[in-house]
């Protein structure tokens, strides 16, 4: 039984260059995602907070 991937990543990666710094697109996506998720985790309201405020 074959499980073929929907998106085939088995081809040479594209790279981002900036001076001596270079990173694969995939790694860059991972890092950007981490920063976005971290920011969202801190910024997004947590359920229950409004209830507390209204109850005060």
């Amino acid at each position, binding site marked *: 039984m074959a499980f073929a*991937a*929907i998106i085939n990543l088995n081809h040479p*990666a*594209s790279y981002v260059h900036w001076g001596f710094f270079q990173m*694969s697109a995939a*790694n860059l996506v*991972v890092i950007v995602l981490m920063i976005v998720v971290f920011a969202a985790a*801190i910024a997004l309201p947590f359920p229950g907070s409004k209830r507390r405020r209204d109850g005060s």
Partner: protein
Amino acid sequence: MKRKRLSNAELNDAARHYDGPYKPYDLIKELVVAICVVATLALLLTVFFSSPDEKPSTVAQWSRDLPVDFLNTAVSELDGTSGTATYGPPYNHNGEGQIVWFVHLQQWLGVSHPINTAEDYVYAPLATIPGDPLLRAATAKYRETPAKTQAIWITAYSAALAKATVAANDSVLIAHGNYGPLPTMMNALLTLGQSGAFDGDLLTSNQFYQTDYTKSLLFMADGGELTIRAQQQHLLGEQWGMMNETGSYPGQVWLWLYTFWYQIKPFSTSDNADALVMMIMGVLSIAFILIPFIPGVRDIPRAIPIYRLIWRDHYRDLRAAAPKSPAAGGGGGGGGGPPDPAPPAGAAAA
């Protein structure tokens, strides 16, 4: 009125106990939900992207794809100039190894996996070829010849290899010259490689069952086969390769700081780069573990007040409940009381 900045000791005292309110929370349900969420995420990523699996290189493949490179490597193993031959510990005593100042850890830990490159990569494999008296004679003649003459043959043969051509059957053609028995030996080695028998020899020369690929991998790493494939995949050291994966897959992003040092001087041009980088990362790792005790670093959370966002609900509640006078106001943490993060079952506080 400017508030006195709390010292670390005061911060620690304030954080030891919490007497404030609790809310119900189901930890086990949280864990089960988290496992379901993560399993689903992993499943989705698998279904969408699968995982890479580039087939490994073999000596057979190397000797067929890059026969001249194979022969160059075999010659360097024979005359003791290859990377492995000159490596030093843990493979042999032919090199100093890397040093940092007076620290020679590589040397001090000794030769634990001895490799004699001429013996292991040339003489022993050739000896496995049955029924070839010409080859046996050639090998014996080479071994008996003084080193000076061997060096003349090696130099001439290497120069010839630089101008060699590859025939349709993957054999290597060189101009006539004074190479002694080298062409006989090397061509036999090339045939052995291309047949696939060399792979087996390197693995099972000492015993039938084997899981140790040291000899095979060091031999291939001395040549260009692995390096060429690695360069195509952006896995070389100077390509920040440590972080990368084959294909377009995400790699080991957490190694960013480790690979960073190899990109800049003096590490990028130093013979002792590995030892230096390991030392730096060792120190930084220990510092990372000991952050709570490092002044300055442990104060960064107060200097960059992301905590105000994280605990904004709590601070809002405190402000709402606090009396007008700031002197009697509340703040973070609590005071007094037993260090009980979960109020005792059935017991009202105080």
